[in-house]
């Protein structure tokens, strides 16, 4: 069936079997491989995306249900070469290791910070309860989200327009951060 929806702000149209997993539509059809698959049964959270602003496991959502709706993936968190505060802080505080859980964790954390700009550690843990990580031991993920909350609050402008954040904050240690494109 023909499905039109918005992905990361852009209108997309595809012809897909209605029961195709949203995860496969994103990864295989639209080439947005940032969203990862870790279990295919809603346990690990690696495929978390925002559907109309709410976090869902893309492995459990048939693409046929996405008609007319809005999806945000990890690729839509920053903008035009700039990182969101969460992305920035996951680099600064070592929240990402192998990188498979990272996109889903970032999406869950984004959803948290949109609703709760000043979460305590328990609120962060609760929000990330559906995201498994096998590398970091979670502590640095919590530290990263905590730092991102501070960063977002520190500059109200950042919350409104994350595109400014890369310039405002990224300059701090730009020498330590560089796109790796092997």
């Amino acid at each position: 069936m023909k499905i039109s929806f918005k992905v990361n702000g852009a209108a997309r149209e595809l012809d897909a079997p209605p029961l195709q997993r949203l995860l496969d539509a994103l990864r295989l059809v639209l080439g947005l491989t940032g969203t990862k698959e870790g279990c295919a049964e809603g346990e690990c959270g690696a495929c978390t995306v925002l559907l109309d602003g709410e976090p869902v496991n893309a492995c459990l959502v048939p693409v046929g249900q996405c008609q007319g709706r809005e999806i945000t993936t990890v690729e839509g968190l920053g903008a035009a070469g700039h990182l969101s505060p969460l992305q920035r802080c996951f680099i600064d505080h070592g929240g990402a290791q192998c990188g498979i859980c990272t996109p889903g964790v970032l999406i869950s954390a984004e959803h948290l910070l949109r609703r709760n700009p000043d979460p305590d550690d328990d609120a962060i843990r609760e929000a990330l309860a559906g995201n498994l990580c096998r590398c970091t031991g979670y502590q640095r993920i919590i530290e990263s989200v905590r730092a991102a909350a501070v960063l977002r609050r520190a500059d109200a402008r950042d919350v409104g327009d994350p595109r400014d954040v890369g310039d405002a904050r990224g300059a701090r240690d730009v020498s330590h951060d560089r796109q790796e494109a092997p």
Partner: protein
Amino acid sequence: MRGEATRIGDGINRVDGRAKVTGQAKYAAEFEAEGLLHGWVVSSGVAKGKIATLDTSAALAVEGVVHVLTHENRPRLAWFDKSYRDEDAPAGSPFRPLYDDAIVYSGQPVALVVATTLEIARHAASLVRVTYKTEEHETDLAARREKARKARPGKGGYEPPPKPRGNADEALAKAAVKVDAAYESPAEHHNPMEMHATTVVHEPDGALTIYDKTQGVTNTQTYVSNVFGLKPDQVRVISPFVGGAFGSGLRPQYQVFLAVMAAQVLKRSVRVTLTRQQMFTFGYRPATWQRVALGATAEGKLEAVVHEAIGETSRFEDYVEVVVNWSGLLYQCDNARYDYKVAELDVYTPLDMRAPGAVLGLYALESAMDELSYALHMDPLALRLANYTERDQNTDKPFSSKELRACYAQGAARFGWEKRLPTPRAMREGNKLVGWGMATGIWEAMQQKAAARAVLSIDGKLVVGSGTSDIGTGTYTAMTQIAASILGLPIADVTFKLGDTTLPPAPLQGGSWTVASVGTAVKAVCEAVREQVFKLAKKMKGSPLAQASLDEVIFAGGEVRLARDPAQAVSIAAAMRAGEAFTLEEETSTLPQLQEQAKYTRATHSAVFVEVKVDEDLGKVEVTRVVSAIAGGRIVSAKTARSQILGAVVWGIGMALEEETLMDHDLGRFMNHNLAEYHVPVNADVRDIEVIFVPEEDEVVNPLGAKGLGEIGIVGVAAAIANAVFHATGKRVRDLPITLDKLL
């Protein structure tokens, strides 16, 4: 203005961080190819027997199905075991997918359905009908313990147990105080977050470009070449990002075999991704039984150490790991005896999993030491210190360095160990029993042969490459940092490449030896470039460095400066321009200094202190505090180093309290083969973890003095938790994991 140079030891951000937080990092299943086909694996439903019938007609009838590969229609394959043996293969006959009708374990691949889309392949795979002529199987280690036998050596890096010293059994019988207990631990699966996947691109000239999830591209290349009779230069293996592995990518897994086979047969590009369930159909940490008996004087001096272990293995290979050797190495004791055996079961061959062997052996030894401390009415830390050894009595060699005393002291101080009340059940908060436990950890510090290439361009950009991998550990970052520090360049001007068989070869990423091995090669190759630059700088007309020697200059800020007068400097770019060198290139291979290293035992050490709170009514265990003090030589990259230990400590929590792959012995198959029922630690399981790196100098282990950190962080953690649980509850649980039912 140029950024400041980075030094070895600084805590820099992960250089691949941006790629990972933006979703741009590409993993094995994410590379595209024209006309890519998707494979779906059909797994055996029985543990042992023969395939009686295999009906693929319904699957083939599905529109979009291109082929179904089985043992009946497979192409010719290599004949000898040798061809299937990879760098990490133990002794025996490696498993051959789709080779014949024999079923040797449950979950074994029996067919690969190849189709134009993933959905069609998955659907058609459900239509493949297989019947079996089953044979009786045995999958229970307890039932086969009596039949355990000596393992055949042959696995790289495996050291059989040392010869006994003194007479341990006699000393044990005579000892004033003794403990003698059996410890059991279940099978565990690595469960990296990324499933194993391979994308094989069939190039127009018939060559294969293989994007594989692996801990060693060379290993995959050699395996594929040997098995399919291809020349290595027709097989390029690429693996820029690996979504965790922990040992699961040390051997080429069957998805790479099947994807290559399909690509070869169909002359098309093929991708095969395993499901999470199928992640439980290859290597794992073996279920293991151990006995540790310790005898001591009334003052707590060890008189006897006996350590025996039996691990499971498959019928076709002797998986071996070093479980018992550590016990005669960690403490001073003149009487020691070891035994290590394997028991054959109808399962797949186990596989190295983070700190293989050591994590089990130290669980048993350090639990037994704790039991001995109570028998002696002695503080557990005091007991360890009373038996501290400056010499490895197994080999009668000194340690190249051993700052374990500092680990004990700093860890205990940070934790507040001196406030511990010695009696079990003496500390509580409301209905929660509080327990403090500790344990020692040890792991080998190894170095392997490795090679690296470096190209410095006149614009000051340095590209260094080696065919190693980064399974999330931080190889990109550590190597970039080493290279940048040697040439005095900002991190942003250095690119490190890995995971490609066109790069100079590196060993498998395992054993915690990557920084020691590849780091040494990167250091050497960058020093060779530095020397070339220095020669050019000296030769320049009117060079202020004309009279200088290499040890009188420093490289910083893109310049070669006289150390005693940094204003006397030549820029790297100017030196290269003057020498008409647009690029300077070096390639170097480095070997460990075997003769010198052989004089010493080289090891990392740790001391782990743990606080648990146990709900007295429900038996629920929370690990509320961990202090892990590590003696790991020189720390190369402080941030990624800390991450390695944090993650490993949480693996220890998983091992102690949660992780267990449960086998249904009637069916001979793992039952909890998913992330819902195989419990890995989650956010809520983790509280306060502190990491201390104690300073440790070591000039023997390798020129960097770095000992490796991937494994040491998990060793000892399970014992420390088990010991804390005993301190809290007075209950000694000797079979992992310590689930609440065992405490009620």
